[in-house]
């Protein structure tokens, strides 16, 4: 390499040869850093103090309310908690099962619908129209209503081979409802890939399909992972809606226990279990979003 070339191609990973004096931290910089450290310490103390104050106000406020003894007895009974936990937990496994099956099917359905909406050939017009109608209709129906319609409607048709098991019907309803949302998320991701990427792929003589498969989709999917995870956090909770069809999942089990002695603590058990599952997922989503943002600002413009 000539001198001109090495100077002309600075690469972030390579350390340029040292020119000029070596750096020794100045008095001024040391004072500046000490001041910043002091400020950071003060911020932590203030944050801790204000958190404690808020927590105390909340606890005192709630426990001193006139109905508190009654609430504590009906919602926070340790005995009822222990009694309900095994059954509710067993029910919750069914929620997780429904969630996992539905999630896979939703991803497949959503991606298919998004791809169909992007087809341009005239022969695909009916499919494309169907995809548009599907997303419009199923995003418009409240999930719980859809669960009733699918759960009682499909068995009522008395079709040969149609599922009659409430869990299957519930999963079908969730897939139909969430598939429409996820299709729109995928479509937004596909449209967010810059047209110049398509132009580059097409200029290399890749077909429409190859361009989508090798250039557009990989970039689109990476971008939509955070919003997709967000939808899945919401799906985890909505598996509880299937309880209206009767399967013994967490909410249903909690209901059964509540009906035994009119103590509502089992609901709290179910709520805690859902939180235990959704919080890590929400944090993971945040983590991915932060990482993506960092890559956007730190990376190149390509």
């Amino acid at each position, binding site marked *: *390499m000539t001198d001109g070339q090495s*100077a002309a191609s600075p690469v972030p990973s390579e350390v340029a040869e040292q020119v000029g004096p070596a750096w020794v931290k100045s008095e001024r910089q040391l004072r500046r850093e000490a001041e910043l450290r002091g400020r950071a310490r003060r911020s932590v103390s203030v944050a801790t103090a204000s958190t404690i104050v808020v927590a105390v106000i909340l606890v005192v406020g709630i426990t001193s309310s006139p109905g508190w003894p009654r609430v504590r007895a009906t919602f926070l009974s340790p005995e009822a908690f222990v009694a309900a936990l095994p059954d509710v937990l067993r029910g919750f496994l069914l929620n997780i099962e429904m969630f996992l099956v539905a999630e896979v099917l939703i991803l497949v359905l959503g991606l298919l619908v998004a791809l169909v909406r992007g087809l341009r050939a005239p022969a695909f017009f009916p499919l494309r129209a169907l995809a548009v109608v599907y997303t419009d209709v199923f995003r418009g129906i409240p999930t719980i209503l859809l669960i009733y319609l699918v759960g009682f409607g499909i068995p009522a048709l008395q079709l040969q081979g149609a599922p009659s098991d409430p869990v299957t019907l519930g999963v079908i309803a969730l897939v139909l409802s969430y598939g429409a949302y996820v299709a729109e998320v995928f479509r937004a991701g596909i449209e967010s890939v810059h047209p110049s990427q398509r132009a580059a792929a097409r*200029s290399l003589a890749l*077909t429409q399909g190859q361009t989508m498969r090798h250039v557009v989709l990989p970039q689109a999917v990476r971008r939509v992972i955070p919003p997709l995870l967000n939808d899945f956090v919401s799906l985890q909770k909505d598996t509880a809606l299937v309880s209206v069809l009767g399967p013994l999942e967490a909410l249903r089990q909690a209901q059964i226990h509540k009906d035994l002695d009119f103590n509502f603590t089992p609901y709290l058990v179910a709520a805690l279990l859902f939180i235990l599952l959704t919080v890590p997922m929400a944090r993971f989503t945040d983590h991915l979003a932060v990482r993506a943002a960092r890559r956007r600002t730190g990376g190149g413009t*390509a």
Partner: protein
Amino acid sequence: MSLLKIEGVWKHYQGLSVLRGIDLEVAPHEVVCLIGASGSGKSTLLRCVNLLETIDDGAIHLDGAEITDVRAGADDVRRRIGMVFQSYNLFPHMTVLDNITLAPRKVHGVRPEEAEARARELLDRFGLADKAGEYPDRLSGGQQQRVAVIRAVATDPRLLLLDEVTSALDPTLVTEVLGVIRELKETGMTMILATHEMGFARDIADTVCFLEGGVLLESGPPEQIFSAPEHPRTQAFLQRVLEARRM
């Protein structure tokens, strides 16, 4: 016989005529430079040749066959034409090597080992051998654009279109990209370049074409266009370029 023949090509955008009856012939191994102000139609002309834009009138022939025939397949035409863009347009989710071998593997049916060997050979020739496994955002602009050129020639196109390939680059990085193009000329590559680098155009072009307002006003060998332009518009344009350089 000419490799590329452009006949009376018109192109409109929202009622605005950006190409107004362009005629141009390019012989095999010829290097044609399109010069002119931004918005004169240089880029649009290149995009029309690559069928990224559909023309509104006229015809374009490649190897004697009309490629603008609406019954012809665009993918078949693009297999024979390479294109390099101003903003590189490398695929950010692929390594340099995958960027280069994608079209040979998927479009031209080259075996993966063969495509990779060829890509490494080209990277080596253009001083990028150690960047094969890098992702594009780890490269400087000049390196990215050199990879984009390699990607475009890895399929041995009949014709290479270069659309202001140095306009997005830091001045110190321009030379390394121009060096690659100069080397391609020596291998006999037929090229059409839209460029603002007048010195380079003068140096490398067999024919220089001056466009203004979508009209090809004047064309000829570089000595004639740069030293003794006939059209007053060409004179005015070159005068403006010269004044800008002096500042």
